[in-house]
């Protein structure tokens, strides 16, 4: 299935856990330090450096680009560290997150309430994923180095829906399906 950003509610409603997608369009990187700053802005009633409405945040801190490339290795980082911050961004209209590893109950509830999804990209496949990234612009927090917020233009970025807007969780369902009780 191919999907392009930005995403709206009817896009989100079409997605179910286990769906494999090829994403194209703009997505924004953001991880620990950038999220901390974004939430401070929200709490102070200040404007964010980009409008999160309909957008996807990719939990990633890429490696630097070697000559002739737009970006270095750029796989996902572990998502639970962004769990304390994610519900506030989802409430502001963020429609998707890309990362690795399971999400908290609060994040799953927020995805249900405001219609958003969580995608998993393959952790450790940073070289492969970097080939889907065609353009990179720094949007904010350049001082954070790899943790700066970057806008990435992606083409056919392979992701899997791990949490949909119906409250389903592929981490739970997958493990239950393959667990052998000994």
């Amino acid at each position, binding site marked *: 299935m191919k999907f392009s950003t930005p995403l709206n509610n009817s896009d989100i409603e079409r997605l179910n856990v286990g769906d494999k997608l090829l994403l194209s369009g703009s997505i924004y990187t953001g991880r620990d330090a950038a999220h901390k700053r974004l939430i401070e802005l929200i709490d102070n009633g200040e404007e964010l450096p980009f409008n999160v409405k309909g957008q996807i945040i990719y939990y990633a801190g890429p490696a*630097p680009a070697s000559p002739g490339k737009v970006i270095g290795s750029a796989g996902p980082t572990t998502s639970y560290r962004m769990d304390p911050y994610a519900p506030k961004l989802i409430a502001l209209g963020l429609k998707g997150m890309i990362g690795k590893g*399971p999400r908290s109950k609060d994040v799953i509830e927020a995805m249900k309430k405001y219609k958003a999804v969580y995608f998993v990209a393959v952790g450790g*496949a940073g*070289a492969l994923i970097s080939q889907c990234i065609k353009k990179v612009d720094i949007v904010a927090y350049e001082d954070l180095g790899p943790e700066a917020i970057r806008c990435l233009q992606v083409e056919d970025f392979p992701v899997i829906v791990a949490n949909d807007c119906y409250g389903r969780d592929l981490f739970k369902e997958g493990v239950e399906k393959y667990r052998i009780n000994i």
Partner: protein
Amino acid sequence: MREINVQKITEVIKKLCMETNYYLGDDVVEALKKALEVEESPIGKEIINQILENSYIARKEKVAMCQDTGFTVVFLELGQNVNIIGGNFYEAVNEGVRQGYREGYLRKSIVSDPLERKNTGDNTPAVIHTKIVPGDKLKIIIAPKGGGSENMSEVKMMAPAQGIQGVEDFVVDKVSRSGGNPCPPVIVGVGIGGTFEKCASLAKQALLRTLGLRNPNPFYADLEKRLLEKINCLGIGPMGLGGRVTALDVFIETFPCHIASLPVAVNLQCHSARHKELVI
């Protein structure tokens, strides 16, 4: 005394930093190919395929296989008949890391203070473990360690009465609780014995072993096999989305311990299991 110039040490460290991050070991590639045959989950299979393809791209293009190019952990085995000349030994190691990460386009992932959290900008300092051994050689092992799997590691000071059952339960439970976070399929390093810090160090050293090799002690070799079997019954699978292959291997290292203690450490390693060595 054989003399080794610090400049040589810097050169070797720089080269190893780049090579470990570009080239996934043949043992890991083979283990992943085998995992592909065993894996029943279609999503799991697809993930393993992507991991393998990623390793081929990294090798061919000389780019980091994972953007988390890690905390540079350096193991040094210094022959007691070696005289290090030309400067400060550890500064030479850090200079190698600095040059390797800059010239190799590797990510700088170290903050200078754990609470202030300002990036040092050059991936230094390295974590350096030095062992003095007989002889006149210097063995350098570089093992960059990613944060995702390191965060899922743990030390437990158990009571001797908990015995082997306690150890098995702790290791399996640790992998189970870590789920998809440490980038499974993982390699599980287990340290048993020693003191608090010694057993953590044993668990880390265990991760340097070539996949498929067993502990020379048959008792621990059996325990490794049993733990691997139990872990692969957990159903966590590639990236935690369900499947048969949760771990590629389990390695145990042990050390004598105090009559009152049974320290156990689990150090998880993601599938980007990187380590390379060179002897000067």
